[in-house]
């Protein structure tokens, strides 16, 4: 399946102005003119503890329509209680992540014209995270992992007025900081998705964040033992699935994870440094290990547990 496919053939004339049909508050779309084609959309419905099912809808298609538009049409016309998380509708906030025909995608930039005419479009929630309802999952685990990363640490002895960095020195860091936290990379990562490890793994998103700190021109903190012992960087076996799904086109594996793996390897697997640590009586880490939270298979954000 291609990422954003080529433009669909002929673009029809402007859509008519909106008639006064009930529309979900999210929907910016006008109703289509009569005679336009329809798309068959299958949507996962369900809540934890209940047998999930798929509802099918025939959604009228208009020019430039994306999967999120189709979901809003369904909310406005057929299923007002359909749970969908979204905000900006411009691929800038990373809220509307889902799996479309099995592929993790932002529904706001997955165009219906990417699919073959007549192809059924199946929309499911991200599978790596516990279900809340329909297409909405509990991604709070990610926010807990983020808290364990040591924040930006500028040098204490250089006044800010003296900070000077060239544009080319920060372009790599700016690439990491493009991340919109859609968590699609977390969703597709087989380590997280299949709960493959006994110990927690921070996942590609937070390796990208750590890289943004580690490679910042003036950051002073050393997160290598954290990455190795708490973050579980070794669990990543660089299959690059994360890079493929990143809507911001961050080269997660090549530009973030591999450089971090090299830093960790230089520190911990270089024989000279290993011998030096032995001599000084140090262990393999800095001693104090931060424990990552465990990604649960069951829903329920910690702060929402009953009193």
């Amino acid at each position, binding site marked *: 399946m291609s990422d954003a496919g080529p433009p669909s053939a002929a673009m029809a*004339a*402007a*859509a008519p102005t909106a008639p*006064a049909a*009930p*529309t*979900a*508050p*999210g929907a*910016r*779309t*006008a109703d289509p003119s009569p005679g336009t084609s329809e798309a068959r959309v299958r949507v996962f419905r369900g809540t934890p503890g209940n047998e999930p099912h798929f509802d099918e809808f025939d959604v009228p298609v*208009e*020019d*430039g*329509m*994306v999967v999120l*538009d189709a979901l809003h049409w369904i*909310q406005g016309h057929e299923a*007002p*209680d*359909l*749970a*969908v*998380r*979204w*905000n*900006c*509708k*411009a*691929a*800038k*906030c*990373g*809220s509307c992540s889902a799996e479309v025909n099995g592929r993790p995608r932002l529904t706001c*930039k997955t*165009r219906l014209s990417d699919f073959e005419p007549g192809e059924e479009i199946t929309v499911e929630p991200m599978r790596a995270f516990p279900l*809340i*309802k*329909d297409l*909405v999952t509990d991604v709070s685990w990610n*926010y807990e992992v983020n*808290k364990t990363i040591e924040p*930006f640490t500028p040098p204490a002895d250089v006044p*800010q007025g003296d*900070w*000077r*960095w*060239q*544009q080319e020195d*920060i372009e790599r*860091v*700016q690439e990491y*900081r493009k991340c*919109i936290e859609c968590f699609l990379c977390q969703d597709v990562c087989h380590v997280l998705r299949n709960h493959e490890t006994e110990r927690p793994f921070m996942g590609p998103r937070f390796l990208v964040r750590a890289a943004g700190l580690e490679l*910042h021109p003036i*950051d002073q903190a050393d997160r290598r033992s954290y990455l190795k012992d708490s973050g579980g960087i070794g669990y990543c076996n660089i299959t690059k699935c994360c890079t493929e799904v990143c809507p911001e086109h961050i080269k997660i594996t090549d530009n973030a994870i591999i450089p971090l793996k090299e830093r960790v390897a230089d520190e911990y697997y270089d024989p000279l440094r290993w011998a030096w640590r032995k001599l000084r009586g140090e262990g393999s880490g800095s001693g104090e290990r931060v424990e990552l939270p465990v990604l649960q298979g069951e829903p329920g*954000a910690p702060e*929402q547990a009953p*009193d």
Partner: protein
Amino acid sequence: MTSPNDPQTRPHDVLVIGAGGAGLRAAIAAAEAGADVGLVCKSLLGKAHTVMVAGGVAAALRHVAPDDDWKVHFRDTMVGGKYLNNPRMAQLHALESPDRVRELEAWGAVFDRTRDGRILQRSFGGHTHPRLAHVGDRTGLEMIRTLQDRAVAAGIQVYMECTITKLTTSAAGVTGAVGYWRTTGRPIVFPARAVVLATGGIGRAYEITSNSWEYSGDGHALAYDAGAELIDMEFVQFHPTGMVWPPGVRGLLVTEAVRGEGGILRNAAGERFMWKYLPEERRQEYAADDAEAARWVTALSQSKQTDARRPPELSTRDNVARAIYNEVKEGRGSPHGGVFLDISYLPAEHVRRKLPSMYEQFKELADVDITKGPMEIGPTTHYVMGGIKVDADSGATRLAGLYAAGEVAGGMHGANRLGGNSLSDLLVFGARTGRGAAAHAATVDGEPHQDPVQVRGALRDLEAPLERGSGESPYAVMRALQVVMQQRVGIYRIEEDLDAALIELADLRRRWADVCVDGGRAYNPGWNTVFELGNLLTVSEAITRSARQRTESRGAHSRLDFPDTDDEVWGHRNSVIAKGDDGRMSVHTAPVLDMDPELRTLLAADHR
């Protein structure tokens, strides 16, 4: 055993409602001042509208233009706001924004650099000098991520996907808030010593808007209901450049940075129409012709100083939006009812580097390569200058313990906001308001006590639309509201439309009182819409009443029946909205805050 519909209780010294730039900055400041802070947001953390900001944050850092300073920034802000701004706010904003930007850098933000390695600044409409610190065209993301990480490191308790529907009060002031988890529908009660409203804007009152579903005027309505005043509500900014095609993204913002980097506006005949619309009194600030404008763009793209003046497209937003509206109305529009914005005459590589997310946005959503051809754009509802009346120094409202910062607060931008002044507003007044709220909280003795009758009433209001059994869908009423506001209270206004709108809004409020939803409380968008719609009805009435009262045209408020600016009557008066003793909305005016004589001399050349 607790029922899933029993409220949770979470007391805090300071409760911040809204987690965009202003809410995050306020929460950080309050926590640094020693308060125990709760931060509530309707979405996930880091998704607020601040994330959409492309252009930059305005601050007179003087990295690109040594002639810049806070006085010029202050003057630009007042001129842009047509002198209705709270002058003390405009002063504090201009004075403090450079420190707030440097602070972001110290917290890890990575701004684009000048050749000598400092924070780079770009030009924007209405700013005399290149002033906007930026990160390509994703400045808002950089800012919100930096603040988010700082807030997390400060240990602030965040309540994600949680909606506040009511502020509780006592004779002594605000006592907390009541709301619910969007994920489960379970109610939650927040006793608090101080409350900061940082809920952003009202764009959802209109059909065509750059705002997401979140911007339903929650803070405006909560404050109004609790007894605070709203000012300048007639001033709604219609951003000149929203996408017009495809229909699914109609209204989505096209950053002003496109024009800041040299984007040219043309009508269907290929005419560069902005030359016709420059206001005579500011004509000398703009290039004389295409050649001078081109020299300005060339110098900019090479980061060189120039004596060329800026292109006409960098006029203020209100003026550019009206110009586009007129071009379309007079039959010179593009195929999809907008005009053309062209940056493709610059080298493709340069455009992709300076405007990467605009390049992506058009490529992915509209099949348009902006390095090869023009964009089609038109005005879109973007920002409300009006908001809760606050004290400039502390963010305090007239209700003790209630504070407001960011877009939900009024006064800073007067009749029209300059691009880039929003992010700096969030930072400057977010920080001040967080400190103000924490200082107030420290003066409140004993545990905050919420009146149980008020809490029970708020909980009943949550239940009502689920229990009615039959009634209209809230979506239908929402849709009707958006049509009324778009058609009758839009870019151009006239008394008969405004009168009709007030009648229609009253009718919509009656329909709203009977709406019904099913599907339960958990993550139910229909149920959520009920409360947002109620807030939008309040805000829409406030906009309409203020617009009807102001019988002149000024800034973002344009009256067809009163096309002239009337300095004599209106030049020094703000509109004020408050809830009357009879529970009805009252509108009146108050004089613009007196200006310090020193500030007055800064404006002397422009304004009496």
